[in-house]
């Protein structure tokens, strides 16, 4: 007989970010209230006044690691949670704060880094420092995907990132392909899960869900060159969100 699984204890944490991902969770609306039936939000700086540190089933962490205090914080969170889910582009691919890593050397060295209390040389995603069990991609995350993995983890199913590019969902949505019109789109190298949001409104995918491991950058880049994009334009596009120092799709 299956045991009664009880409520899953979760916490939300944010490092350096805009906190939009935690808000995006509220997009579940009624489903959010219903979810409170099987999860218990033990920690959330936005929703809770008192946040004593306790053992957690799942820690959802947004934001990237900018300084050593972020690092210490995430290490502590890791220690006391069974699962750690990185949430949003900042936490999974260094995201917008990580543009700092991709700045030209001159600008980078002139940055007033001392404004960060204990600065790190680069902005990092979580998995550079701690074990991350699952990455919820996107800027901001897709709330339906959040619910899906919350439910799966609650039941003991370990979700895994599948190597599916945005183009798959783009085709399902029946959008006209932008690459065919000569517009540079990162869909073929970006993880799906957003329902091809941007191509759906005729805007190119800018890679907020991170690059797939299977990505063929060489082919895409040479395609962009054929479209007439200049070197720095291609670089800007590839480093819109994908700025993690260890993995930047060739930049």
């Amino acid at each position: 007989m299956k045991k009664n699984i009880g409520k899953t204890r979760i916490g939300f944490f944010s490092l350096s970010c805009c906190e939009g991902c935690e808000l995006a969770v509220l997009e579940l609306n009624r489903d959010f209230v219903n979810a409170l039936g099987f999860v218990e939000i033990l920690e959330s700086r936005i929703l809770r006044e008192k946040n004593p540190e306790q053992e957690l089933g799942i820690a959802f962490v947004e934001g990237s690691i900018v300084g050593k205090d972020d690092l210490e914080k995430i290490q502590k969170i890791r220690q006391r949670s069974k699962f750690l889910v990185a949430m949003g582009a900042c936490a999974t691919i260094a995201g917008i704060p990580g543009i700092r890593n991709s700045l030209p050397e001159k600008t980078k060295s002139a940055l007033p880094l001392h404004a960060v209390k204990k600065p790190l040389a680069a902005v990092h995603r979580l998995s550079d420092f701690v074990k991350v069990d699952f990455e919820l991609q996107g800027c901001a995350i897709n709330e339906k995907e959040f619910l899906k993995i919350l439910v799966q983890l609650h039941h003991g199913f370990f979700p895994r990132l599948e190597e599916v590019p945005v183009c798959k969902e783009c085709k399902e949505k029946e959008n006209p392909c932008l690459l065919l019109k000569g517009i540079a789109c990162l869909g073929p190298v970006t993880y799906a899960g957003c329902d091809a949001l941007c191509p759906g409104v005729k805007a190119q995918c800018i890679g907020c869900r991170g690059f797939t491991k299977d990505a063929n950058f060489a082919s895409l880049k040479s395609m962009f060159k054929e479209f007439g994009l200049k070197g720095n334009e291609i670089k800007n596009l590839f480093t819109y969100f994908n700025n993690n120092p260890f993995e930047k799709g060739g930049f």
Partner: protein
Amino acid sequence: MNIFQASNCPAWKFLNDFCVIVLGYFLKKKNLLPYLEFLQEENGLQAIVPVVNSNGATCFEELSKENSENLFLDSKAFFSAKKFFLPNREREFLFEKKAASFEIHETIKHRHKVLFGLRSCDLHALNALDKVFLDFYGYDSLYRNKRNTVLTIGLECLKPEKNCFCESFGTSKPDFFDLFFWEKKDGFFVEIGSPEWEKLYCKKFFEKTRENRNSQKENCSLKLETKNIAELLEKNFENPVWEKESEKCLSCSSCTQICPTCYCFAIEDFFIPGTEDSERYREWDSCQLQQFTRINAGIFRQSRKSRLRQFVMHKLSFFRQQHNVHLCVGCGRCIDACPAKISLVEIASQIQKNPIGAD
């Protein structure tokens, strides 16, 4: 099975192929939309028509007040009507937890539809899908139930597009339809293809005619020699062309998503939030993705080369060996859709030019 068997019957084929005068009616162009609306309102069918969608792509949608102005009849739709038989996401079962056990509810949901505007290649594509889902080691009920409640109205193609090569597969001549509309000056010659057609009959709009169905279709400029292609490719499994072409490939899976005959799907279970009940879904999958062959021991088709090869070989060789038809109907959609401009015609003809083991 309700699909009219006679369309496969040799006598019927003979009649159709060699007699110029066929039984049929005439429908005026201006009556087309009223006719489709009639089918929707009077005959209670859900009319699916090719339209330009809000993003500017051509695809099949249910006819409605909003999109009736956007009817697209110039050429084949960019997105095929495959989704009405194999939706990209479809619930198979609901497993309801009942005490220690479960109750299984099967999804049986389908509306009687009429699909208008299928081109000859689309009709042949349906036939290929039928082979897999109606009689290949059993049937698939989700497909079968849908297939049995869909009536098809084909539409003649006058001007093939740049990447069309249906003639190479002999799929330029329509087969397997309930009605087929041949383009005529200010109207259509309506050919009857199955006994089901009566459900589509409308006295108000169908006129008796002396017209014939003579086709004015232009020939495709793109050609592929398909004789023995299956055997040739099988021998050229290690041809360097695969490696060369796959360097361009983005593995975006657009080709398989858009192909009217690609049918591979994945099955997944999901819990319904807050309950012990779960649902089983089926979703399009694609041989272009690594996960397609991932098992505990590893990924069988890890390289881009082997995945691209699987696509082309399945189309032109494997399926042919299984079912005696090609899994390609020459619609050219995969060539249209490929951002890297990879073309299976190009690959096949390169291999034809430079086969390995030619002796």
